[in-house]
């Protein structure tokens, strides 16, 4: 399955919600997506296009544009194309549906994105902090306007 076929199939199926879908190279495709469609698109990719491996899920903070972009890297065990899906969320109340029902290992990635960026994943089975101590909850340390680096660390909290 090559990059062009994949992007054509996705654009055909979800033409209203996919923006800027493009082939970056033989093994990389990327697109922006409307937040409501994320579970549906992931399910379609997993069932029809053999994307059965969630490689990573994270977020990037853009305070100037007032948005947080959630980035999904979805690959496959059967072909070497890797899809990058970006979803723009408003920075003051970022919320998106969890993809744990589709990709089981999204669980920890979403917990980490939640504690570091404050992105809330709806219907996540266990949305609690993973690597941070409870005292740092609500600080969202990986956001660009976080002022505690490097002094407000776990050591200084206890």
């Amino acid at each position, binding site marked *: 399955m090559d990059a062009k076929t994949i992007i054509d199939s996705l654009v055909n199926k979800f033409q209203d919600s996919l923006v800027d879908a493009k082939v970056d190279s033989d*093994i990389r495709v990327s697109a922006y997506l409307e937040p409501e469609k994320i579970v549906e698109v992931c399910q379609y990719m997993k069932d029809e296009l053999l994307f059965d491996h969630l490689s*990573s899920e994270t977020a*990037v903070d853009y305070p100037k544009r007032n948005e947080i972009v959630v*980035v999904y*890297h979805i690959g496959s*065990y059967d072909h*070497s194309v890797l899809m*990058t899906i970006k979803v723009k969320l408003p920075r003051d109340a970022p919320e998106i549906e969890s993809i744990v029902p589709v990709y*089981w290992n999204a669980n920890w990635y979403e917990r980490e994105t939640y504690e570091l960026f404050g992105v809330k994943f709806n219907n996540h089975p266990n949305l609690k902090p993973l690597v941070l101590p409870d005292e740092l909850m609500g600080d969202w340390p*990986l956001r660009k306007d976080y002022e505690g680096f490097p002094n407000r660390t776990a050591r200084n909290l206890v």
Partner: protein
Amino acid sequence: MDETVGPSEMIVHLGPQHPMQPGPFRLNLKLKGETVVDGDIELGFIHKGIEKILENKTYLQGIPIVDRICYLTAMTNEEAYVGAVEKLADIEVPEKSQYIRVIVEELSRLQSHLLGMGEFGEFIGFVSMFMYTIKEREDILSLMDMVTGARITHTFLRFGGVRDDLPEGFKEKSAAVFASLREQIADYEKLFNHDEIYKLRCFGVGILDSKTARDLGVSGPALRATGVPFDIRKDEPYLVYKDLDFKVCTATDGDIAARINVRLEEMLEAMYIIEQCLDQMPSGPIFFEDSLYGVRTPVMRVPEGDVFHRVEDPRGEMGFYMVSDGSDKPYRVKIRGPVYPTMQALPPLIKGTTIADVAAIAGSMDGCTSEADR
């Protein structure tokens, strides 16, 4: 995990400090008698905030930082980081440097597998195994020391090349080390596969079938032991791997013994790769002469953009997602380590086994908490 306990059930906390653990994490187990009913993992005891640190360092300063994600896989971490920057800034690497990189990365795979296997031996009560493997690992580390000047955290790769050429006498020294290691690997196989206790503890225990492994997102030797030939070196060749002849080692059983056998085979493959590299390596410079980059790269600005670059770590798929805003520091770096999903898969894997098998199963997955926490 549901914290309520039923009749004859109890909760046992393994960790954060426990001899069977490759770093501090807490494994909460709910037991009914000796059977594991449920389990979950708590992380964060060694969280270093490396992603945040990298945002505050220039690109060159980031290289020693990524070494510290996990000292066993320092070279492959560097390759993923440096490779991502090279893709973003469109920097070419001379073929000679690419061969040197493959050599040190395969050496790193050798020493990681050796330590992983020694630790695993220790977990199943086979402590002398650790003594055997650590001795061979020391020879491999001396080889890496010869090339990079450091035993574990090397800071050896540079954008567009490597820090140093291979030293004189490296080929002869490595031939001697590999000859002894090959003999040792044959011995390890004998030690493992002819030991009755090992057979009872490791064959047919902790079975991960290929469908579950795919669903859980596992990669690396643990996945290949289930029969899925997923290897970034083949699927998404970086450096000169496409010119090298090597096979992806797989097994079919998916149990503890299969994972160990895959690692043993991979060590033989790694030595074969290094020997090919030493034979095929062209002569030439380690940096292009008209290149802006060198051992001491000046402050560099990387064009705007984002890239996801992945390499095959000794433990699986290592990926760096890097966003640049055109300045001299990365805007955002996401480190996708192979151990993270593998550790996540541990609780479902140990469900239904006995508590005595937990250490064996966890050891055979070859985890590293430092990398999972970052």
